[in-house]
């Protein structure tokens, strides 16, 4: 620490938001929307559907019918909490793990599968046409989010860009540069650091020495807040507040959602190589679905019958989507040129022809 006798010229703090304890008991007065039980049931359904879909996707991968897939097991509250606080006209800039967010915003399951099945057409997405596709180069969507938000501000549109990334991504300069610019122009953008404690095999303490990820916003001159990312009510409340602030011209915010990656990094990973199973066991006790369920049950808003019904409904929806996915038409090879430019430069016509004529085989 710098000499304690010197005058302090600036002070900062990071606050943390949570409403439900891991066992579903209430820690402090809930936000208003939580009194609307159907709303909570919708959040619950969103999380259950996401988890069920993810698990099915993994089994598709295991049986060779899908490529590498990144599940969000244990992180469903972040996905659903954020997505449910957004409007359709807002723009989502998601990471590869944000399946639940995409589903909530209208992307069809078969589209998600098509993308991870190795077909660009999956990104055609039935979600809002202006949403960005999954971002794979970690953190690189953050400056784009600032660009999107700048467009909103310039056109005086009451819209917000929402940018999701992981704890690992906070180490990338991209995120820093983006947050810094968003601060300067008080842009309508919300950054969400999905802190699942791991970046593949790299634990948080090797990623950064900062006590919280939320405090990284201090460097950019705006507020960062921690939220219990396994408490969907807290995530939604934090997102609603941040998005409302952004929409009203109050500038950006960073939300650090504290959660845990209960699964392997992707289907190509084996977390047992680097992570003690006990850690995972402990974290299972905090997972978001059981938590909200316990609360709903305590409110007499949920029971075994509904649970079974929901599970069956999700299974049915997923099975149907998988069928459509598996029945998807093959992609003609020459189409790899079709969206290269708005119009194919004549120079490349012969290459396209070579592919369509099969003379490339």
């Amino acid at each position: 620490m710098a000499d304690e006798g010197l005058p302090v010229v600036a002070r900062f703090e990071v606050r943390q938001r949570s409403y439900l304890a891991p066992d579903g008991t209430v820690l402090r007065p809930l936000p208003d929307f939580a009194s609307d039980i159907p709303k909570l049931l919708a959040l619950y359904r969103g999380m259950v559907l996401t988890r069920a879909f993810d698990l099915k996707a993994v089994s598709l991968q295991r049986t060779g019918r899908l490529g590498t897939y990144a599940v969000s097991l244990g992180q469903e509250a972040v996905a659903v909490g954020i997505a449910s606080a957004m409007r359709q006209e807002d723009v989502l800039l998601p990471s590869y793990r944000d399946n639940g967010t995409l589903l909530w915003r209208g992307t069809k399951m078969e589209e998600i599968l098509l993308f991870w099945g190795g077909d660009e057409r999956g990104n055609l997405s039935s979600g809002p046409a202006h949403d960005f596709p999954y971002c794979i180069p970690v953190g690189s969507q953050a400056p784009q989010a600032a660009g999107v938000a700048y467009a909103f501000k310039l056109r005086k549109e009451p819209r917000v860009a929402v940018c999701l990334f992981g704890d690992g991504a906070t180490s990338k300069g991209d995120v820093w540069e983006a947050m810094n610019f968003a601060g300067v122009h008080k842009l309508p953008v919300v950054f969400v650091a999905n802190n699942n404690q791991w970046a593949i095999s790299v634990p948080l303490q090797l990623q950064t020495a900062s006590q919280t990820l939320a405090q990284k916003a201090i460097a950019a001159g705006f507020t960062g807040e921690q939220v219990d990312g396994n408490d969907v009510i807290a995530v939604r409340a934090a997102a609603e507040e941040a998005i409302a602030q952004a929409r009203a011209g109050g500038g950006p915010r960073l939300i650090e959602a504290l959660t845990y990656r209960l699964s392997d990094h992707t289907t190509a990973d084996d977390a047992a190589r680097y992570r003690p199973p006990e850690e995972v066991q402990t974290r299972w006790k905090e997972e978001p679905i059981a938590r909200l369920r316990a609360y709903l049950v305590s409110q007499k808003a949920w029971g075994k019958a509904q649970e079974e019904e929901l599970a069956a409904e999700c299974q049915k929806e997923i099975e149907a989507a998988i069928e459509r996915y598996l029945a998807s038409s093959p992609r003609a090879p020459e189409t790899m040129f079709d969206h290269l430019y708005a119009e194919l430069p004549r120079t490349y016509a012969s290459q396209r022809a070579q592919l369509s004529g099969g003379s490339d085989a």
Partner: protein
Amino acid sequence: MPELTLIEAINLALARAMQEDANVVVLGEDVGINGGVFRATVGLQQRFGAERVIDTPLAELLISGLCVGMAAQGLKPVGEIQFMGFIYPCIDQLVNHASRLRNRTQGRLSCPMVLRTPHGGGIRAPEHHSESTEAMLAHIPGLRVVMPSSPERAYGLLLASIRDPDPVVFLEPTRIYRAAKGQVEDNGEALPLDIAFVLRQGHDVTLISWGAVVKETLAAAAELAGQGIEAEVIDLATLKPYDEETVLASVTKTGRCVIVHEAARTGGFGAEIAALIAERGLTSLLAPVARVTGYDTIMPLPRLEQRYIPSVPRIVAATRKACEFA
């Protein structure tokens, strides 16, 4: 028609584009009240406001990433990178995003952005200010790479680049920013991005070049004419995708070809032109395809930079050799 320098022509095209289309925004370091370190954006902020002419923080990755986000939202951002030596932090956004946003989303999103930057050496600038690494960009599918070599072409090609629905890297030959004036009419007419410009007709040999060194190439052609050699001079202008037909047609006619560029030789874009000819023009060739280029070493600081940049005598010598080959 007013006589303008190349940098003035760029300024004019930017003003025109901003006037025509409210979606056009300009962003970069010092582009606002300062008008850019070369004055390309001078007067724009006064005229179109600080919201459309944005002085960004000092962060090139950011500038390129902002452009991608803005473009996906329907704006037409024109980013400025202060010198090409500082463009490398943009490569990730250019390769992984800008150039493939349309393809990744199968046309759902697109990326109509322009990234402008001064290109090349010869102005006695400090270290890192004299880069010619266009070949790195011209290899990237989905990108356009454009480099004017006269005020007229600067005006017309920049307008075309801004109007183009896909991402364009626009490289401006620093050395000739103010070298010569040209007639530029502010008529809003764009030049096509898919043709090379035949600047001089000739039947003995084809000289192909782009950017600032087109000047030396033309000077060499004039000198050669005095020696009885009529060189056809082609300004490639758009490097990606480039006009293969014009190149091949000329070489078919002349049978000899010398490529001139300032960038380092190995893996420079001249290699691509030579490869094209070796592949599709071979039967017309009467002599080896020669490349007159920067050397395969670091562009030296000002004391030696003129020895690095292809000179008129080097071009003349290589061309004579090509013509004398039998």
